[in-house]
């Protein structure tokens, strides 16, 4: 069952395409492929009688702020996220931006550790950090204030994909704050404090609130589900793994006997192209993907699973039995047809790609109300957008049965600067490097 993904060219069946929903366009919604590192949880739970957590155990839990990498990337995803993109006001220069970044750094350092920052009028709202993280992303407009030469060539809007229907207002921003945590009240307060320290320097470009399962609903390490009911993120490299270090941070750990996923051994130099100021950082492609729940309702379960290439209940590839079974794109059913359609999402996203073509998706669902917008904030972290993200995205944009129900409406690209030591500010390596 656990075979390596095929590397030979693989044509897709016209018959299946016609027999199923129409294809075309882009969208990276759905499970990509399967392997598990650092998974677990949930196994012991079934035997215990359900009970409420009355201890408030998660409230005081903190994620470190001062670290070689920013938090909120390798951090196991929290239950809630605010994505807040800001646009610099006219006339803001490097001197103002560094003042701003110092303020925001001090705010984030305090809030994530459960303290109200300076001038916090409601410090009590900071006292249950519940794994709050604040992740800073820089857009080209901010980076170029440090000098045009500092702007990497990939830090620009992605190429246009055939079924993009982008809202220009969701494709802008000079600074991204990805604020994540398990407590929505703490999160709202953190956003308010960061906003108050931003309004002299910038205006809100766009924002989105996202959610996953609540803290405590499932054990750690469970793959989340999106609003289509699909398991979402099965193929992610596990936190702390050698794969994660190479695929996201762009550099191997140089530890002895590294273990790799079924994808194979990724190169250990994917981050070599990053400018010096980004060492310890990574890149983020953030796609706002609208999901059409009404037309998805029209697709019955077999059609949904056919389009995904996975079952909906366990997330197992249609060639396998378990979520983390490696998809077998050669396996055929009794009629002689491949069990996984070559046009399915999992086949398009995975079949034939080498081990460097992997990403870390840290997704959050959104829904603004009954009958209103629904979708997924698809945060894709990878060391090299050209080598890792774009090959997958281009192929999904070409053919992916899921494109029938998904439409990218926002798209931004961010440079994620490295983490810092106490006394430094986020972005110091850019402005004072």
């Amino acid at each position: 069952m656990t075979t390596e993904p095929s590397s030979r060219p693989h044509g897709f069946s016209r018959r299946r395409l016609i027999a199923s929903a129409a294809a075309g366009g882009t969208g990276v919604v759905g499970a990509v492929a399967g392997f598990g590192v650092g998974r677990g949880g949930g196994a012991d739970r079934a035997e215990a009688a359900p009970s409420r957590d009355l201890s408030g155990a998660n409230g005081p839990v903190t994620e470190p702020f001062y670290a070689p990498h920013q938090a909120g990337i390798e951090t196991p995803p929290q239950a809630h996220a605010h994505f807040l993109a800001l646009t610099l006001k006219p006339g803001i220069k490097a001197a103002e931006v560094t003042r701003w970044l110092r303020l925001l750094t001090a705010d984030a350092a305090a809030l994530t550790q459960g303290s109200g920052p300076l001038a916090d009028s409601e410090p009590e709202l900071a006292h249950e950090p519940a794994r709050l993280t604040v992740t800073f992303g820089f857009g080209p407009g901010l980076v170029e204030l440090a000098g045009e030469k500092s702007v990497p060539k990939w830090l620009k809007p992605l190429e246009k994909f055939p079924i993009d229907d982008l809202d220009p207002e969701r494709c802008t921003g000079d600074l991204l704050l990805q604020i994540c945590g398990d407590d929505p009240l703490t999160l709202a307060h953190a956003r308010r404090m960061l906003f108050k320290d931003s309004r002299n320097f910038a205006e809100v470009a766009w924002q989105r609130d996202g959610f996953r399962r609540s803290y405590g609903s499932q054990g750690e390490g469970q793959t989340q589900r999106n609003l289509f009911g699909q398991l979402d993120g099965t193929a992610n490299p596990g936190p702390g793994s050698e794969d994660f270090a190479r695929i996201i941070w762009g550099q191997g750990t140089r530890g002895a006997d590294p273990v790799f996923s079924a994808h194979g051994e990724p190169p250990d130099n994917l981050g070599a192209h990053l400018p010096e100021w980004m060492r310890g950082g990574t890149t983020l492609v953030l796609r706002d993907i609208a999901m059409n729940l009404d037309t998805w309702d029209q697709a019955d379960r077999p059609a949904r699973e056919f389009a995904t290439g996975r079952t909906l209940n366990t997330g197992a590839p249609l060639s396998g039995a378990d979520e983390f079974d490696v998809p077998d794109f050669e396996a055929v059913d009794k009629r002689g047809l491949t069990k996984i359609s070559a046009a399915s999402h999992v086949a398009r996203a995975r079949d034939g790609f080498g081990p460097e073509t992997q990403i870390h998706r840290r997704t959050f669902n959104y829904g603004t109300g009954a009958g209103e917008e629904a979708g997924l904030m698809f945060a894709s972290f990878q060391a090299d957008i050209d080598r890792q993200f774009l090959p997958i995205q281009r192929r999904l944009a070409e053919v992916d049965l899921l494109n029938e129900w998904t439409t990218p409406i926002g798209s931004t690209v961010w440079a994620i600067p490295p983490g810092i030591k106490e006394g430094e500010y986020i972005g110091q390596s850019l402005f004072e490097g």
Partner: protein
Amino acid sequence: MRKNTTTQMAALSVAAMIGLSACGQTPASEPEKTSQSQVSVESLSLDNAWAKAADEGMTAVFGELKNNSDEDITLAGAKYDDADEVQLHETLEDNSGGMSMQEKKGDFTIPAGESLSLKPGGEHIMVMGLKKPIKPGEEISLELVTGDDQTFPVTAIAKDYSGAQETYAPGEADSDH
């Protein structure tokens, strides 16, 4: 007048730095304290210091005024180069149910080893007649002046803050709170 003095074990020195000039707070402690220089904590510090950003007019400085010595210290005033005047203020309820600030009668006394919290709606350092704007994120430098005329340089980070108004009366429609 409620003094709101608290004993603090360790202060996070986010923004408050003390100069390293030789200025022990009392003659008795001077010989020892001044001989150790770089690493010793100054007798009087303003920890977690911040100021309300302002373009003109008046503003205020807050923080944890900490007496790191074993003698009581009185704060008699403060100096800020880019303002006409600096006063020590307290905030009192007025007859209408609002709050208003007024100059403190007498000094702030910080007992040995304790600290006094300077905060909006309480005691604070009032800066009047700004000669130039204090911008958000800017670090300003002031000098604290004790009753025995010793000075302690401190810095404060300017924050965008819409409280700490000179007067606050409930129901004022046009004010920015």
